[in-house]
């Protein structure tokens, strides 16, 4: 059964654009159902602001099913808030209690400049994919899908990595602003599969080096795994590091010998 939460105080980051230094502003929510999602609470607040003639708070969101990776809020200092393995849009108010003060910020990372309020620019993540996060397979020439068997444990491990939703929580949670978990997830998804072997070594090299151009360095804090809404394991970072090292020594003429 639903209950009402009373007297919430929200401290929300407001920033009119990249040039504005930004500041926190406090808002009150008198009552909200605990069945409401966190973003629905912000919807309610925005409706109230519009009714008062004020500008609504800008925040990124779309599917509200935890899969598109658009939502991106730092809630009380935690990327996506207090619930493990959960994106902001799937966080519900039942995780909070009456009288709480909740601090809401955008992702904080040098590579993710604030666009406005709680919205940031995460396009460096796309740059990493563009240099190697794919298998070169032009449309039309694919052989029958069952011609290469993929052992189930391999397919499962690849899928574990492929679940990444590209939200950037790993970067936001990392004290160094590193994107190693994001990059490792895509490298591992493709490098584990037989279809990904042809470009295995060039892929990891290109992706890691592009990552390094935009993001900080990984020092194994493990904050990324804790913040990841898909609970992607940092084991994949080890796999990426191993492949990167190998790629650096690899004789490309003997590429099939992994």
């Amino acid at each position, binding site marked *: 059964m639903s209950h009402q939460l009373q007297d919430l105080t929200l401290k929300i980051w407001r920033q009119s654009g990249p040039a504005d230094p930004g500041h926190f502003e406090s808002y009150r929510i008198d009552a909200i159902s605990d069945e409401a999602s966190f973003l629905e609470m912000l919807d309610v607040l925005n409706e109230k602001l519009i009714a008062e003639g004020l500008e609504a708070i800008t925040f990124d969101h779309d599917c509200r099913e935890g*899969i598109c990776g658009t939502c991106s809020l730092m809630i009380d200092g935690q990327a996506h808030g207090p619930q493990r393995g959960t994106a902001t849009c799937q966080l519900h108010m039942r995780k909070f209690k009456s009288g709480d003060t909740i601090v809401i910020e955008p992702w904080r990372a040098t590579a993710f400049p604030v666009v406005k309020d709680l919205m940031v620019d995460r396009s460096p993540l796309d740059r990493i994919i563009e240099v190697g996060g794919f298998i070169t397979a032009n449309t039309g020439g694919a052989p029958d899908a069952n011609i290469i068997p*993929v052992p189930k444990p391999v397919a499962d491990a690849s899928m574990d990595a492929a679940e990444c939703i590209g939200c950037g929580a790993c970067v936001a949670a990392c004290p160094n602003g590193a994107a190693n978990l994001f990059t490792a997830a895509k490298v591992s998804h493709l490098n584990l599969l037989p279809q990904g072997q042809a470009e295995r070594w060039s892929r990891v090299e290109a992706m890691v080096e592009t990552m390094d151009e935009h993001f900080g360095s990984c020092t194994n804090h493990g904050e990324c795994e804790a913040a990841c809404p898909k609970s992607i394991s940092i084991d994949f970072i080890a796999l990426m590091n191993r492949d990167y090292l190998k790629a650096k020594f690899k004789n490309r003429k003997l590429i099939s010998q992994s």
Partner: protein
Amino acid sequence: MSDKLQSKTPAGAMADKWDNFKADMKLVNPNNKRKFKVLVVGSGLAGASAAATLAELGYDVEVFTFHDSPRRAHSIAAQGGINAAKNYRGDGDSIHRLFYDTVKGGDFRAREANVHRLAEVSVNIIDQMVAQGVPFAREYGGLLDTRSFGGAQLQRTFYARGQTGQQLLLGAYQQLARQIGLGAVKLWNRVELVDVVTVDGRCAGIVTRDLVTGEVRSHAGHATVLATGGYGNAFFLSTNAMNCNVTAAWRAHRKGAYFANPCYTQIHPTCIPQADDTQSKLTLMSESLRNDGRVWVPLQEGDGRPAHEIPEHERDYYLERLYPSFGNLAPRDISSRAAKRAVDSGRGVGPLKNGVYLDFSHAIGRLGKDVVKERYGNLFDMYERITGENPYDVPMRIYPASHYTMGGLWVDYELMTTVPGLYAAGEANFSDHGANRLGASALMQGLADGYFVLPYTIGNYLAPMLNQPVPGTDHPAFTAAEEEARARFQGYLDVRGSRSPDWFHRELGKIIWDKCGMERTAEGLQQALADIPALYEEFRRDLRVTGNGASVNQTLEKAGRVDDFFQLGMLMCRDALERNESCGGHFRAEYQDDEGEAARDDDNFAHVAAWEWSGDPMQAVRHKEELEFEAVHLAKRSYK
């Protein structure tokens, strides 16, 4: 029939038509392809796959998305799977059977030749996606696994856990990203289409608005593809993402593209019921759950006992009772209406009595918790996060919600709209699903259009245009469209009324859901056609958009989208009112048989209704494309 509605279906036997088209189509020399600019709007399955493939072929491609990244398109949320006539199971599948099931599933309101082509290329899609590294579910021997889905008696659905849409979209996105990295595609992100521009009746390009700076800008191209999804958010509460909208399709409609069958909307039977008034969207629980979950309500009205206290003989497994051969896997429209009737009869469950049970206790008893977890674990977790209830212990509660729209821009066999040079692909067009879409067919259609249809048909249009001059963005038609768009968005800011765009959207959605939702009547539709224009008038008088137009303003974006939903809402109701029959997702209470099933009227309504803009949605002109059935016989659709 309007002379614009030429389907251009190729000659020959049904199974030969696509081959015949490819044999006869005009080609563009590889070295000439770069001379043609193709604008692709939308980066979901259809848009990303079309853009990537066209760029691979050598065309000069630009992609537009309102998201921050093309990977966020709503195709990503599809859960259950993708159909293909591979027959890897040896259970008797074939291209013909997938074709037949899709035509029948659509209640015989789709164009046969398009559906047959879809079934043909379905097998190529799986090959292509596996080559791209989509980690589909596998058997222990390493071969691909499949499962069954509603409306089919075969296991032809390929899947990647409960995230098939995500994995397929990421596959297409990665192909697109590769082309962007190679410089073959130019990406415009956080940019929204606000108008389509025609010159001498042909599509000359589009006008966009930058969502970060507010800049309105023209883009000229030889051909334009709208892969902009469906209009399910007209209902306000739906399983669509918050930003899904009809604007691109609607603006095209206003520039001469006919809008087909807007009343064909799909209400998905398995969504989490609404919990309270602040709810912003509804969440789908994949139809694949009906493979192992059993749907029931208490036999007694108003039975307030918790599920586990209701003994077996006091439960009504109504789908198994009414449709014994398909049972819990009856198609979506049929399952949805059955759920509505169960709830309307006072037997709804949950705190608001607005759901039915989807119960896994038998499956857990039969298969064990581990197997159920392996199959549906992520869906169960999602359910628990949203409702706070653990579906391993208590049955899920589900209720139908707006999910997909079969209607859309009218297209011919080549996916071209009634505006030459303007194409519509994926959910944005009307072409393949008739009056009802079968599960796991949306992913199939999006990828079929983008990977395997448009790359051929666009070349057929472009080839004769080689070295012909086309209008540039300095053409007066572009400047006029830009001015109009600027004035329109400034207009929303200038109303300075008292109600937010979301308030209007919610009210509009209620009218459409009540009167043009799961069950429609002439009386209700007439009421809606009085109520929507009245509310629209209020929208134009009393809208309040705060902020300005020169930086990110999500309230302003929403105002433009709600404006278009109002106009579409009127057309949906008019279409539903004119279609005096029940078929698929369009159920008119006046037209049902003795058992309460949809009663089609093939003599009078075996046609596509394609609406022509006339300056006012209430005055749109209805045209017909008669549907002729050569390969399948029109039959009553029975799943009993």
